[in-house]
């Protein structure tokens, strides 16, 4: 948006009495998401070579867990100082990003060696560290990556406690809760938005890991007893989907007892029930709908991309036959098309929508 358009928008909001004080000075131009992705990947590549530098030139650091932890935290602290001291410097930000990623790798290495690898302890510690970094580090890319890493570590902590199945469901609730309360967090948008993207990406990843059909901990060689059943996780995802639909209905001014609200929730529940055995369908729909509700095209696109990813990955889900999967997909397809018919003819007929 150019300065003239910004001024025009400000005047429009001011005339509606929605502004406070004068129009703020122009901020640093918004960086498109794909430029951020490019910079994030470059940061990882640089971090790999920085880690090589530490491994070859400062080998004594890797020989001691304490030294790894100390040097790792020092690098993260230095990165924080650079982010703070030179927030507008492209070189400074890239350098700090690479340095922090390297420091985190050293910290993870140290934590992994100092705590009981067979328990949830190292994963909980890593999740806590990453969660703190997601909030504290004043850099968009860093916050996305740290939030993503925190959720993955938490999912592994749950897995090593026998609750692997509920990880996706819990993250789905967090994703829905955060994005649906975006306006409440607007004063902290620089923190909340990147964390929201990190959580969403992690949710897509965690939900997608269901397709392997194998416990992550079993693959890591742990024989922890699983107590949480897969249905619990999917039930939580469907609950998050229903929560999102209910919140959006309320936001639109539809009361709970209205017939169209009840029908909308029933339709959402039917979609959740039909796709219960197809992980990701309800979650992908939830991301797409919440993204659209917030006017966030990137988030809506992420939800649609997640749906395509889930449908193509579903072929490889190991704990069901192709015949059973065909049945689940056929039921989901019929329910989705029936939901569309109900939407267009009963819940939101054309004339009523035009009047609204």
């Amino acid at each position, binding site marked *: *948006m*150019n300065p003239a358009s*910004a001024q025009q*928008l400000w005047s*429009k*909001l001011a005339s*509606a009495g*929605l*502004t*406070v*004080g004068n129009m*703020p000075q122009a901020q640093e131009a*918004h*960086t*498109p998401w794909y*430029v951020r992705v*490019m*910079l994030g990947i*470059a940061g990882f*590549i*640089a971090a790999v*070579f*920085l880690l090589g*530098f530490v491994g*070859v*030139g*400062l080998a004594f650091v890797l020989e001691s867990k304490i030294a790894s932890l100390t040097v790792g935290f020092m690098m993260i602290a230095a990165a924080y100082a650079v982010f703070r001291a030179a927030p507008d410097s*492209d*070189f400074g930000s*890239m350098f700090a990003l690479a340095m922090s990623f390297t420091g985190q790798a050293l910290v993870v290495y140290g934590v992994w060696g100092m705590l009981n690898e067979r328990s949830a302890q190292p994963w909980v510690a890593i999740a806590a560290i990453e969660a703190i970094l997601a909030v504290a580090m004043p850099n968009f890319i860093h916050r996305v990556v740290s939030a993503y890493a925190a959720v993955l570590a938490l999912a592994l902590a749950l897995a090593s406690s026998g609750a692997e199945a509920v990880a996706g469901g819990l993250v789905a609730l967090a994703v829905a809760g955060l994005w649906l309360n975006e306006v409440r967090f*607007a004063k902290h*948008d*620089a923190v909340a*938005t990147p964390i929201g993207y990190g959580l969403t990406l992690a949710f897509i990843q965690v939900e997608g890991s269901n397709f392997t059909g194998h416990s992550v901990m079993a693959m890591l060689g742990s024989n922890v007893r699983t107590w949480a059943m897969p249905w619990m996780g999917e039930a939580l995802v469907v609950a998050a989907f229903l929560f999102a639909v209910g919140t959006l209905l309320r936001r*639109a001014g539809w009361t709970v007892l209205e017939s169209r609200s009840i029908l909308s929730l029933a339709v959402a529940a039917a979609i959740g029930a039909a796709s219960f055995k197809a992980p990701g369908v309800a979650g992908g*729909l939830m991301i797409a709908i919440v993204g*659209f*509700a917030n*006017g*966030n095209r990137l988030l809506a696109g992420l939800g649609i991309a997640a749906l395509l990813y889930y*449908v193509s990955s579903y*072929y490889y889900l190991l704990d069901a036959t*192709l*015949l059973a999967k*065909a049945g*689940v*997909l*056929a039921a*989901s*397809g019929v*329910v*989705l*098309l029936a939901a*569309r018919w109900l*939407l267009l003819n009963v819940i*939101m007929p054309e004339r*009523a*929508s*035009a009047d*609204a």
Partner: protein
Amino acid sequence: MSIRNAILGWSERGAIADVRAALDIAGVLPHAQHWRAFLDRLLLWSGAVALAAAVVFFIAHNWNDLGKFAKFGLVEVLVLAAALGYWRLGPEKAAGKASLLVACILFGALLALFGQTYQTGADTWELFANWAGLIAAWVIVGRFAALWILWLAIANVAIVLYFQVRPGVLDIAFAGERALWTLFAFDTAALAAWELAARRIRWLDERWAPRLLAIASGTSITALALHAILDWRDASGMAFLLYPVWLGCAYAVYRRFMPDLFVLAGGCLSVIVVVTTFLARHLLQGGGDAAAFLLIAMAVIAMAAACGWWLKQVARGART
């Protein structure tokens, strides 16, 4: 910066009293009609894709309890129903387009069923090549971007599979490189054709599709450049010539003629990866020392910072 980001930015600095009302007045939040149109499309496409995938999965299961004629009958009836659906609903309606997409996917399932039932001995690439060839007429009359992307994806799979089973009579070592060159030529030609056609044909003017093709073309030529650097004794070396040409063309087209920051960002990432690989190949031979690792890390940081700075300048220029 989008309107949404501008309002959220102002709100963060305490300049907006009611963020939701501001987003609403600025037209960022959807109203009932927008919701109706969005949910219509979302439910239609997800339902159509789920049903088409269900048939593909069903055929892949090769259920013995159902006879071959029943299976053929089922898939043929569904293909016919989808094609009739397109004919009835017309090419302008989303439901008509969804019917045609389903018909095209189901046609692939029908070909797979034919190969599965009669054990024709054909290679897998032939299934995909025949599929692409037989639905080409539908794709042309469909006049819809997603269907062209599906067709191009099927053709890409056919090319990859062809080179897996026919690595070449003279030199097996070149098979991977030949497959990549073929993919590069095909996707680059498709990209050029798309960009040229989109200037005249309105329904092709959707940026996501040429961006996907640019990713495909860029990934192939980047992989070829990496192959030439890492395996220069076996590689043909053509990539050393064509990679800079591709970069120059991408710059000229997407910086000068039709600015597209997405493709420029992809080009930057490609340069970073190729230069880093070149440095690592030559500085880290035999294990490398600490200074070499540090030098490469700093080079990556410098390249990324320079690219980030340049892309932001381009973005700023494009908006003003």
